């Protein structure tokens, strides 16, 4: 019934455009707040250099902001173009935070960003500072609502299936907003954005100091970036742990896959620092483990066991069988004209929580209810995400997180001791660390979203059912179009960034 190729192509397109969009978003959010901080210092101290700093970093912010806005448009419309069934199935819940993001956050950010650039001579100092803060607040609120939507994909609370409309419908908006996953994701993600902004400012300032240029501006910028960055990097790690904890509550399979934890371990489970997951034998080779660490981090207790992949697959088999019952009841309900049969209704209500698991069988048998035991086992193993990339992405991300803490701590120490200009080794290191936050952010996205597979909505809707009924030719066309177009834009963007960074905060630029 479904052309799998369309699903794979659509996933590829969504993944590539999302990763691309996310190259610009963290810097926008991080720099916006840094700009607001710098301009606040200007308004408080009245020293011209701080205004110059705000304008210079603002210039680079502007180039980046344009790319973020441009690539964000694709994200919103792609749900409709490529994930039409997803949009129908969950639009009732998922669409709301996206629309509120537009109303509450993006309007604010986009309306005032023009004044940030063009209002310097038209506004009083304080009014302009307010504008800058509103841009920063807008971009943070934007992140909040997008993550509320994303968190619902990870942990679909506050909703229920309606057999008459064949979709999920909202039952509690409060639950959707105050989804614990949304809270932990938001703080973790925006902290990572602040880190990105701080590394960007620090690395480029280090470049100026190495060249002996604009040292007044660069030294001050490093001081701001180091203190702001240190606080943010610490919170990324602490709040990332919170994110891990919420994952252990509702996405046990994702956690087990990240850890390549095949068997349920006696509490408290150990954390595998290194190992090669073997997907054939379901074991890891060359394992190096820290005892207790995972159990403590993920459950915050010493006696709660963490289920392993094999046990979770067995649980999935049961849920798939329940899902088959729910699916059958659903179709009886759909066919009944007038009042539904109370018995079928009761049966559906009892098992509707597992309906999504039943839908996992669609790729093996479109009728679902006639699945064989073998197909059920296959579908149950489909609930295991792609372990190897998750295992490594997660470890690399965490490694970068800790590296950046050390980097910022060193920068902070050196700048309070006023030795930053002389420490050329550190300046080189700081400059070379420029790509790190982007790598970590992209890896984080992979852990969260690739780790959610095979689900578009965890436990509710398998990803390959969410696609539009379009042809693979159409998706090939748009996919290649996006790759070519985005590559050109990336080349131009980097070219301009480098040009203006080399030019520095000259009269022409600011």
């Amino acid at each position, binding site marked *: 019934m479904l052309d799998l190729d369309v699903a794979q192509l659509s996933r590829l397109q969504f993944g590539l455009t999302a990763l691309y969009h996310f190259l610009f978003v963290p810097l926008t959010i991080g720099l916006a707040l840094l700009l607001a901080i710098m301009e606040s210092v200007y308004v408080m101290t009245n020293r011209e250099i701080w205004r110059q700093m705000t304008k210079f970093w603002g210039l680079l912010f502007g180039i980046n902001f344009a790319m973020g806005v441009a*690539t964000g448009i694709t994200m919103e419309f792609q749900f409709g173009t490529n994930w039409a069934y997803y949009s129908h199935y969950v639009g009732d819940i998922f669409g709301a935070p996206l629309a509120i993001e*537009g109303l509450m956050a993006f309007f604010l950010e986009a*309306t005032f960003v023009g*004044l940030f650039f063009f209002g310097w*001579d038209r506004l009083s100092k304080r009014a302009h500072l307010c504008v800058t803060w509103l841009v920063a607040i807008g971009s943070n609120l934007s992140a909040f609502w997008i993550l509320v939507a994303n968190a619902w994909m990870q942990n679909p609370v506050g909703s229920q299936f309606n057999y008459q409309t064949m979709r999920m419908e909202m039952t509690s908006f409060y639950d959707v907003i105050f989804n614990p996953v949304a809270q932990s994701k938001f703080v973790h993600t925006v902290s990572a954005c602040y880190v990105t902004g701080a590394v960007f400012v620090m690395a480029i300032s280090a470049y100026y100091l190495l060249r002996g240029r604009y040292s007044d501006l660069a030294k001050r910028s490093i001081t701001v970036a180091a203190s702001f960055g240190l606080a943010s990097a610490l919170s990324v790690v602490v709040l990332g742990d919170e994110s891990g904890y919420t994952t252990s509550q509702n996405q046990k399979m994702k956690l087990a896959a990240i850890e390549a934890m095949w068997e349920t371990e006696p509490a408290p489970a150990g954390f595998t620092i290194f190992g090669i997951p073997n997907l054939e034998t379901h074991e890891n080779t060359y394992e190096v483990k820290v005892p207790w660490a995972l159990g403590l981090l993920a459950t915050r207790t010493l006696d709660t066991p963490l289920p392993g992949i094999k046990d979770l697959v067995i649980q999935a088999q049961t849920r798939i069988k329940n899902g088959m019952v729910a699916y059958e009841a659903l179709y009886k309900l*759909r066919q009944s004209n007038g009042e539904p049969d109370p018995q079928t209704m009761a049966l559906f209500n009892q098992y509707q929580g597992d309906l999504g698991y039943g839908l996992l069988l669609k790729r093996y048998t479109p009728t679902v209810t006639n699945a064989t035991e073998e197909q059920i086992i296959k579908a149950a193993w489909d609930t295991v995400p792609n372990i190897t990339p998750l295992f490594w992405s997660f470890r690399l991300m965490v490694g970068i997180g800790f590296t950046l803490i050390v980097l910022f701590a060193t920068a902070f120490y050196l700048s309070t001791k006023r030795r930053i200009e002389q420490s050329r080794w550190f300046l080189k290191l700081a400059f070379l660390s420029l790509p790190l936050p982007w790598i970590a952010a992209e890896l984080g996205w992979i852990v969260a979203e690739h780790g959610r597979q095979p689900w578009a909505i965890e436990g509710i809707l398998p990803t390959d059912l969410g696609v*539009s009924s379009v042809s693979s030719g159409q998706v090939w066309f748009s996919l290649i179009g996006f790759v070519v*177009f985005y590559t050109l834009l990336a080349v131009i963007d980097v070219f301009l960034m480098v040009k203006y960074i080399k030019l520095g905060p000259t009269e022409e630029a600011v």
Partner: protein
Amino acid sequence: MIHQLLDYETLRIIWWGLLGTLLIGFAIMDGFDMGVAILLPFTTRNDSERRVAINCIAPVWEGNQVWFILGGGAIFAAWPLVYAAAFSGFYGAMFLVLVAMILRPVGMKFRSKMPNPLWRSFWDWALFLGGFVPSLVFGIAFGNIIQGVPFHFDESLRSFYTGSFFGLFTPFSLICGLLSTCLFTMHGATYLTLKTIGPIASRAKMAGVRAALLAMIFFTAGWLWLKSGWVPGYRILELSEMGNSSNPLSKSVTQEAGAWFNNYTTYPWMWFAPILGYSGASLTAIFLLKRCPGKAFITSAFAQFGVISTAGLSLFPFILPSSTHPNSSLTVWDASSSHMTLFLMLVSVIIFLPLILIYTSWVFRVMRGKVTENDIRSNTQMY
């Protein structure tokens, strides 16, 4: 529960109105940005003139564009079936619009960053396409909706589009596309006349007058085309309840020549919309010629309001009629989100829309006044 304060049927009508409001907001606010971009090659003769034109919209276009993004978000949240069926059906056209909408932000930002004339000319054309393509596709999409779109749902409410990309271009839909392009061009021309002096203003003025006249011609042509019955309308034959769960498969619909005029017979007050369209466009031409660009901008905004309302009111209660399976058509009564979602989205609109209007007006007030070639020479912040 609190959302029961308003019944489902009323909420659906309100959200139909809000959908219209957002589209009209988009046409009025982003319309003039796109119009200025379309006029860029025709009203400016050299780089410094082009910079003047670009800087007229530079401080405000980003906020204006959110009307487009919010329009998409609101359709997703309030009319998910419409969002799913229309956007996946118009796949190729949506891709073109996306590329064009991406060219705009980068074009605005990147153009001024290099003095090389080739570079600037490249981005001038990118900006032109960024204005022209969405303007044209916006009308073509409306044209297709009025004709009916070849799509249907299966039992699980998965939508299937059975038309082709080139099938979107029919004589009627091209009339609609040219109409929307002329309307946005007219709107952009009034703004450009308002914000500039000298030769740019006088060229923009004449372009605006021509666009207004052409818009009236295309509006009339579209009306005649429908009146002739070459493009049929749709009518609901049987519908159980207006406040039921959204299931588009539980009604019956028929295709009928002239059905798009039925509403004007039942509710004569609806004539206000086409009348507003005509009078708005003709007054715009008159005010432009009389050198009152401020008034022309306002009447041009009313013209956008009138023409889009005409389309919406003619279609009511249809939002997306299906030409191949009329019973699959999406209407106000069976394509919306749930009662609760519509209610809480309404609450957020009531809270935030007035705030948006207030701070947007403030930004326009701060940025008021003409943009001249002197300004762009003396102010390094300008693009």
